[in-house]
């Protein structure tokens, strides 16, 4: 029995209590919980996602705060201390050149690996996040517009084909030519390159998101609540914002996870191919690329950035998985 008076209006007082109960609406048993709480509860059950969240928080904090704790300039050369091994190699190889001043060793010019990993992570993560967000924005906008407005659909989908066919390298080189100077003036040499790389990665990677979102919008558009919204005078813009977008959130989340991963990998591939940030500006991809030739003697130099990239991407993927489950009210309701 509820104690809210309104509930009893139809089935008033005279008949047996069981009969009243029978005809009464069941109220949800649990007290109303906030949606974010529900999402969190569901999310918590996903072990992989929790690992992802934990690792991502860890790595984000590490690259954000780390450089303040480990105050070594990653670009500082220290040629006398070059080619040092990580401190743990001393465990099995007492002759190894190790030292606490370079806990993860140093590279062929004596730059500190730890400091580089931290600084490189900053760059890689920043590129990843920014490019992912931008690509998500473009992809979602194109997808929603194409799905919602029939007239624009085929035009936008053909544009998508166009972008799928665009080769990224010449695009990047062209953008460098056209925009580097103004961007350098506006954001400084590294900032300008950052903006360029992020933009290029974004505009070459939004297409899958657009496709998925469009498909979902096409389906959701036919759902009755959209018609209902229209019948109560909701404008197109509001329908998109309030009714369509929240319902395509979970595929967007998945795209976001994949997008972050792709962006980090694309940035590192660009560094690997030698078109990217200034040479003394460390990113994980560049560290990896530089270290590949010395892989046998200094495996840590590939493994550290390699594992950092892989784990980040992995945890983002898991995070996306968990978020998708948590955001889907059908799953959450269960």
């Amino acid at each position, binding site marked *: 029995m509820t104690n809210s008076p309104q509930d009893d209006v139809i089935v008033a007082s005279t008949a047996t209590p069981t009969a009243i109960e029978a005809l009464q*609406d069941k109220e949800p048993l649990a007290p109303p919980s906030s949606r974010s709480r529900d999402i969190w509860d569901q999310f918590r*059950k996903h072990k992989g996602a929790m690992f992802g969240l934990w690792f991502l928080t860890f790595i984000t904090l590490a690259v954000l705060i780390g450089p303040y704790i480990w105050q070594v300039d990653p670009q500082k050369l220290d040629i006398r201390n070059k080619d040092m091994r990580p401190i743990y190699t001393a465990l099995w190889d007492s002759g190894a050149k190790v030292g606490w001043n370079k806990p993860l060793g140093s590279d062929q010019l004596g730059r500190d690996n730890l400091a580089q990993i931290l600084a490189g992570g900053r760059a890689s993560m920043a590129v990843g996040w920014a490019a992912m967000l931008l690509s998500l924005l473009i992809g979602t906008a194109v997808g929603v517009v194409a799905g919602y407005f029939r007239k624009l659909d085929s035009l936008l989908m053909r544009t998508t084909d166009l972008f799928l066919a665009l080769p990224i390298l010449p695009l990047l080189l062209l953008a460098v030519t056209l925009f580097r100077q103004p961007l350098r003036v506006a954001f400084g040499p590294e900032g300008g390159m950052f903006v360029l790389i992020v933009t290029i990665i974004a505009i070459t990677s939004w297409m899958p998101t657009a496709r998925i979102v469009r498909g979902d919008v096409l389906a959701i558009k036919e759902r009755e609540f959209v018609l209902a919204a229209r019948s109560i005078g909701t404008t197109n813009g509001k329908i998109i914002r309030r009714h369509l977008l*929240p319902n395509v959130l979970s595929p967007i989340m998945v795209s976001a996870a994949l997008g972050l991963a792709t962006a980090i990998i694309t940035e590192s591939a660009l560094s690997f191919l030698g078109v990217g940030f200034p040479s003394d500006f460390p990113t994980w991809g560049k560290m990896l690329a530089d270290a590949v030739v010395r892989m046998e003697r200094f495996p840590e130099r590939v493994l550290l950035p390699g594992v950092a990239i892989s784990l980040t991407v992995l945890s983002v993927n898991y995070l996306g998985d968990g978020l998708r489950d948590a955001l889907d009210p059908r799953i959450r309701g269960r």
Partner: protein
Amino acid sequence: MLDSTPTGPIAKIENLRVEFETKNGTVVGVEDVSFEIGPGETVCVVGESGSGKSVSSLSLMRLIEYGGGDIAGGRLIFDRKDGGEIDLAEADQSLMRTIRGNEIGMIFQEPMTALNPVFTVGRQLTEGLRIHRGMSKAEAMAEALKLLKEVRIPEPERRLHQYPHELSGGMRQRVVIAMALACKPRLLIADEPTTALDVTIQAEILALMDRLKRETGTAVMFITHDMAVVAQMADRVVVMFRGNKVEEGTVEEIFERPQHPYTQALLAAVPKLGEMTGKDLPEPMRLVGQGDHAPEPIKGTDDVLLKVEGLTTRFPVKGGFFRRTVANVHAVEDVSFTLNKGQTLSLVGESGCGKSTAGRSILRLVEPLMGKVELDGKDVMALSAAQLREERREMQMIFQDPFASLNPQLPLADQVAEPIHNYKTETGSAVMDKVANLFDRVELPRSFMRRFPHELSGGQRQRIAIARALALNPKLIVADEAVSALDVSVQAQVVNLMMELQADLGLGYLFISHDMAVVERVSHNVGVMYLGRIVEIGPRRAVFEDPQHAYTRALMKAVPIADPRRRKSEKDLNFKPIPSPIHPVGYAPGPSEYREVSPGHFVLVSESGY
């Protein structure tokens, strides 16, 4: 099968308990249910949604495990063909496989989804035969054809090679029945086999099952929540309530002398066709526990609210290389009617006859081809997009599916407040006051305001939809199958609520439904639609008590009545398949012409296609 031992029951369920392990702990689907089914007997299991009917039947098939359930207790005794009794609850799955489809057949709730969309009907029909009967492909095909003939599908040879989506709902359900019957099972479980179907098709399917049962002597466990169907089919009735059996008895006992308060309440909530005979005006239902203040008839006014003339809506069918329009779906064809303030006009008819399209055309949610729609003297058809948006304040819509018509991601209060924000009728804190008032109005606790749709039951959601429609104080509400998807008890409450609101606020309803009993209860006027046209329209009493058009009569006849003593027999039924509403471009149907049989009661005289 009549020669098998008539003594023992075929299946006996004893103290069944089924549990589901979910993320939020154990959910008990069925708590304690026992009943038995004798040979040649039809046992109806009734109860509202979620009472455990399906879970019981799936347990009997041991399919419940695949849905994450677990038979936690009880015995499921089944009498096998060759005499021996076994406890299905203990049997292992490979043994079950020889029983499933062979000795126990099952018909599922949703004919639309119960068939695999990518295999032909023939293939799906023959699978069981080939496994259990060891038939060759050709033999099985021949047998399948025989089965299809038995369930009286038109053109059975062609159906064998068609895909499920190419069949209408009724035909699909027949295929599902044929599949269940393929191996001549001793027990047939039918889980709401007609819920999703039109009355006419439902009548046919029910008649078909009845005949097959009589011919083969199969025992039937028939699950439904529709008391009218129970009255039609049952020998004995088991009433379930929240996982328990609350009452069991012969059909007459249950209908005439219900013992358990739940059964009583349930029966009271069932609208029965003919209950309103002799009354001119609609009146709310008397529900158990509602006390003795007599329901008051709703009179309404004589001022015209909505006037529709010659409304025609067609959907283009595109085709050919240049995607030009090659044909049109004539969804609504020359429809005219008037609706008075404070009154209800119902549109009834079978699925696809254009009811929804008519309703939507009036709101211009789909653009009609031609016709005149006047709302309170204003010509809706002439409005520009901006004006139309303004005019929508006056006319609102409630949709069939309360699950689909609310956005799953928005809190309820926001959904109700949306029209208020859209038109800025209130601002600031007044908005939430208004929303709270609306919640009161539809009798939902204010504590629901912060909840989400999935936390509500169907009836509660439909009330939210009503609250949303009321938010702008409209004059007209188009209720498109607004109560069809609800359980009877909930349906009764929502119907009463709507009528109460009408009495209080003077709303005009355009009530779209295929449920004749509900329509009888709520309408002042009724229009019967067939193939896009209104074939008969007039005061409810005139149309229901003196149907003139052949189609109206057939429709009336098909409606099952919740009274076991008024069963319909198969020979009463005689339906023609509905012709296609698709016509090539340039096809110009004639205008609708009517004959007035009594004041305000018109019957179509021009060709209607029936």
